[in-house]
């Protein structure tokens, strides 16, 4: 059985992720669940699972990140998701560039130097537009499963522009488009475009340094990837576990404590 040296947990608004690393800083285990409002209990459960697999966690430091990081009393330290994402992606991909993380309820753009340092960042956490919640809400109206939305959008040659950037108003706009008989894939494509445009604006506010790296749950959606590449004119790179970069970075911070 692998030996773990440090743990990181990312308590996000949609999901909670935990990552364990070995003494080389390699990811050896992870766990991911929908976020439970009782974050502390959930993290305890994760830790119990890690202990079951790897034996006692005595002396294995834990660093917490994400919006709920302050709720994690077991953590030796709390680090923001900006630093953790940069740390995680740099360790995984081995180069700098501009990272975009699109999560369920927030998104962020981070410019990372060649040596892995954060040079600039921008966050969108005040408004659901520009986050996964925007697609979730509007796609719900179209009764399209979340996993298929991206493919459906890409399958359409047509695209209707969605003028409302506000998630709530976009929803009513979608209803009226359906009533007008517009095909669902064309609406979906418009919705993806709207999200991608918001994200692209955030990218330009920190500056795009190629390559454009993506992380977060939403980038599993192929339309987001394709359209972001189109919108920014840059190739996109993804890590193997796009949802775990925050937790991985946190584990790497914890490893520094262990050392």
């Amino acid at each position, binding site marked *: 059985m692998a030996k773990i040296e440090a743990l990181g947990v990312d308590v996000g608004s949609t999901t909670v992720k935990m990552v364990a690393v070995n003494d080389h800083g390699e990811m050896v285990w992870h766990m991911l669940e929908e976020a439970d409002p009782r974050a502390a209990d959930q993290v305890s459960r994760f830790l119990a699972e890690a202990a079951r697999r790897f034996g006692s966690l005595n002396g294995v430091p834990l660093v917490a990140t994400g919006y709920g990081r302050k709720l994690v009393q077991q953590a030796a330290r709390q680090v*923001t*998701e900006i*630093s953790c994402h940069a740390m995680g992606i740099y360790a995984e991909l081995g180069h700098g560039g501009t990272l975009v993380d699109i999560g369920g309820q927030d998104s962020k753009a981070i410019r990372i130097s060649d040596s892995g*340092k*954060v040079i600039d*960042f921008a*966050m969108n956490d*005040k408004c659901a537009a520009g986050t996964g919640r925007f697609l979730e809400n509007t796609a719900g109206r179209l009764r399209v499963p979340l996993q298929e939305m991206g493919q459906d959008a890409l399958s359409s040659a047509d695209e209707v522009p969605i003028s409302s950037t506000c998630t709530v108003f976009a929803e009513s706009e979608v209803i009226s488009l359906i009533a007008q008989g517009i095909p669902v894939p064309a609406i979906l494509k418009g919705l993806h475009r709207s999200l991608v445009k918001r994200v692209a604006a955030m990218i330009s506010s920190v500056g795009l340094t190629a390559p454009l790296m993506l992380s977060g749950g939403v980038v599993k959606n192929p339309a987001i990837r394709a359209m972001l590449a189109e919108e920014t004119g840059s190739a996109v790179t993804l890590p193997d576990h796009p949802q775990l970069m925050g937790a991985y970075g946190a584990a790497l911070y914890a490893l520094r404590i262990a050392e």
Partner: protein
Amino acid sequence: MNIGKELNYQWQVNVLGRSALRLNRILMARKAGKGQLGKSRLLTPPLNTSIWTKELIGQHYLRGRYANSHGKVAWVTSGAPIEFLKALDFYLLYPENHGALCGAARAAEGLSIEAEKAGYSRDICSYARTDIGAMLSGKTPVGRLPKPDLLLACTNICQTVLHWYRVLAHHFQVPLILIDTPFIYTEMTDHAVAFVKAQLEEAIIVAEKVAGKPLDPRRFKEVTRLSMLASELWLELLRRNRHRPAPISVFDQFTQMAPIVEMRGEASTVDLYAAMLKEVDQRIEQGIGVVPEERLRLLWDNLPVWYRLRYLAEFLGAHGAVIVASTYTNAWAELGPQMDPEHPMESMARTYMYPILNRGTGEKLATMRQMIQDYHLDGAILHSDRSCKPYSVGQMDQRDRLMRQDDLPALLLEADHNDPRSYSEEQVANRLTAFMEMLEAA
């Protein structure tokens, strides 16, 4: 003059009020002597002279309370040319300062809602809403505001004041003097100076009529001299932060600047700042800084977030970060060198066209760049102020240029100077923490 009213004024202001404020000062000084002033574990105690500032401001509002029974009152904008009014013995009330005071006392939100109920949009400057709310409801943390006999608005800060003061003029049915200061894109032209001077000449005629007496040229020069001296001392005070560790944080400057705004042209303001400078120099000599261990030196752009001053100071203090320079507190320091007591008219015209908000956004960038040099900055926080548009416009580009051309890490922080409903603490804290981590790792 009504003798009964005047006696009451003297009794309330100069006997009762003054003694109460003096007693308060003595008690606070005693506390300071025992090291009990300021409850922060993260920040060094406030300056002893800050007790004096508090007393001066207390006196100012106390005089305001009874001012209508004593003499003439004018309400003026923060950057208005006031020297002639002071020389004519007007009591001056600054609605923006009163707004800030309400903000710091957490009364601004309720007052803004009063204004919004009367139909004023939430997009209007939150100072304007706070004050209009206070005017309509009669509520204020200072007890009572005097009614104006005259209004003076100067467009050198924004166009909001133009409309705001029209509302006041309509409400109080008193004359409004409007001084239009042409915007300076690149340089101050002679015809612009002549234009403002001509307006000031007319303004003096109106003010003399309201005051019921002519302007005494000697007094006018004297007030201009006092304004200049106070502004020069204020500039010196700010410059002391070139030292490491910085002796006076910008958060302290925000509260200590009240007299340079609302009591300029008074001898007591000059005395206060002279004493403050002495105390700051002592701190420098003793190596006392704002925080026990200064690690990061930052710049603040735009107005303060009045209702969270202490929180922000402590938040940054916990990271060893000190705000050492700001374009805002500097705005009153820049005026001194423009003033010339021997030519008060000409100098007033020049001085009051010069405020940072009346010059192109490139000028603000240049000021910030100079500050990077002078104050050895590690980063900048640009407060993107929801309801002060003139100060916030251009910040995106300014941030961009500071980052790219000057290699200075800069953060745009969204908030509002007076309306806590446009401020989200969780998100502010998250951005600031990420920014601190970024600077610490650099």
